């Protein structure tokens, strides 16, 4: 009986050869139910994590925007006194303010401006002459400037009786606290969502690896090194992880893009000031991309660790 196993290229019909013109098949099955379930779980968890990452970014941007908006101007208030020329006092206060370095403009509110400002509360046609209404001077600051408010306050006290400077410190401090609290709350939620994501991905990946235990064992028994087996699994699971995380991340990005577009269409200045727009910064988008990549890598690393642990048990 001849058992003549030929060396390459000899004795076999190349037309009958399998595998012509294609890559070697994956050693880890591709279309398993566990694999599909893993992709779905990763997509859902990436979507939730990306929504949280994006929301935190929006909250942080909004908080920073409130703060910088308030920081860009201060107000001089002049209380009325009997027989006082309020227009002259306001003009004097504005002139003092303009002399301070870092001040871009200082404009007194006219009596008509004040009436318009108070109209929602007092109604139209009310004469402010009969009311002890203060006069305001709005002082706008140059971008990034930190004028000497103490000196301005002292000059106002000396030269314009009844004038006081409101540099919004108290309001700013409350805004800063509110912004920090909202950002901290968002980061805490993000931490929880990321923990849940990591745990879900971890257990789903381990489950999917367990479903392929026979593959690990057969490769082990035909003499494959641990690195070879773990590499085959981590490559396969990286692809599964990338598929799921790209789907989840893309859905979240699409939601932010659509939300931003709708927000621009139905723009309400008051709501914009308070809540900001549902628009992600470039940093926010890159954070979503980073989250998706992190989750895909986590899937690959988890599968590698699960396979290595199983291989150690086999020996």
């Amino acid at each position, binding site marked *: 009986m001849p058992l003549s196993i030929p060396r390459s290229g000899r004795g*076999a019909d190349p037309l009958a050869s399998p595998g012509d013109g294609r890559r070697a098949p994956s050693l880890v099955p591709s279309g398993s139910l566990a694999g599909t379930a893993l992709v779905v779980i990763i997509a859902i968890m990436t979507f939730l994590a990306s929504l949280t990452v994006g929301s935190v970014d929006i909250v942080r941007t909004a908080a920073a925007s409130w703060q910088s908006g308030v920081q860009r101007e201060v107000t001089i208030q002049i209380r009325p006194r009997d027989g006082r020329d309020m227009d002259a006092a306001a003009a004097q206060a504005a002139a003092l303010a303009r002399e301070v370095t870092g001040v871009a403009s200082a404009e007194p509110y006219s009596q008509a401006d004040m009436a318009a400002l108070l109209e929602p509360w007092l109604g139209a046609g009310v004469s402010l002459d009969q009311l002890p209404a203060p006069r305001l001077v709005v002082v706008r600051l140059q971008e990034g400037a930190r004028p000497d408010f103490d000196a301005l306050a002292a000059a106002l006290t000396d030269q314009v009786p009844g004038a006081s400077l409101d540099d919004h410190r108290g309001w700013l401090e409350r805004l800063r606290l509110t912004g920090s609290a909202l950002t901290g709350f968002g980061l805490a939620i993000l931490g929880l969502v990321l923990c849940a994501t990591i745990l879900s991905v971890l257990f789903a990946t381990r489950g999917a690896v367990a479903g392929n235990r026979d593959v690990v064992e057969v490769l082990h028994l035909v003499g494959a090194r641990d690195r070879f087996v773990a590499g085959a699994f981590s490559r396969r699971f990286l692809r599964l992880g990338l598929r799921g995380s790209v789907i989840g991340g893309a859905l979240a990005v699409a939601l932010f893009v659509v939300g931003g577009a709708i927000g621009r269409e139905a723009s309400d200045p008051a709501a914009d000031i308070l809540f900001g727009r549902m628009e992600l910064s470039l940093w926010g988008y890159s954070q979503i991309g980073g989250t998706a990549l992190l989750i895909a890598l986590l899937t690959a690393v988890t599968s590698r660790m699960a396979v290595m642990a199983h291989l150690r048990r*086999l*020996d």
Partner: protein
Amino acid sequence: MVRFENVGLRYGPGQEVLRDLSFRIAPHSFQFLTGPSGAGKTSLLRLLFLSLKPTRGLISVFGRDTTAIARRDLPDIRRRIGIVFQDFRLLDHLTTFENVALPLRVLGREETVYRAEVVELLRWVGLGDRINAYPPVLSGGEKQRAAIARAVIARPEFLLADEPTGNVDPHLARRLLRLFVELHKSGTSVLIATHDIALMDLYDARRFLLEDGRLTIHD
């Protein structure tokens, strides 16, 4: 090549399933391993394949004490041993060709290099027309032949076969035995575990009889 000295094996706290086994398997030798069901044949094969460690005694494979072999060196030893499992252990998502080629792929060889060799072996074991079939559609006999082909494709120095003819007709059993004999003649040591007395009668070889965990050798 293989040396057992006073080897004992027990699973958990029960009594030993293999007791005081002492024997040698020489290079280029051929032997059958037989005995009643539950006598410990599969456990002995697993000890020989280094997938179990003995509870006591000494096992030496290819001149190395198995207790002193580092984990990272085990793949090198296993690549020198071919094994045919009783339950075949074929991967359902790979074709017959891909299953048989697995040991060569694990060695890092390219498909263009081993393709002809694998196809020829598959034809020889009667699976020439099942090259692209997946294991779930193969009959028991076809699976067994694919498992045998996978075990011999890398031309191991030592071949272990657990009931390799259990699911094939007598004609094919003789043909598969001839494959093992040819491998033996080309330098491979062969150990076939079988219940099939008729098969053993076809070839004059040393017989290991395992009964109640103890081994007697009939040269």
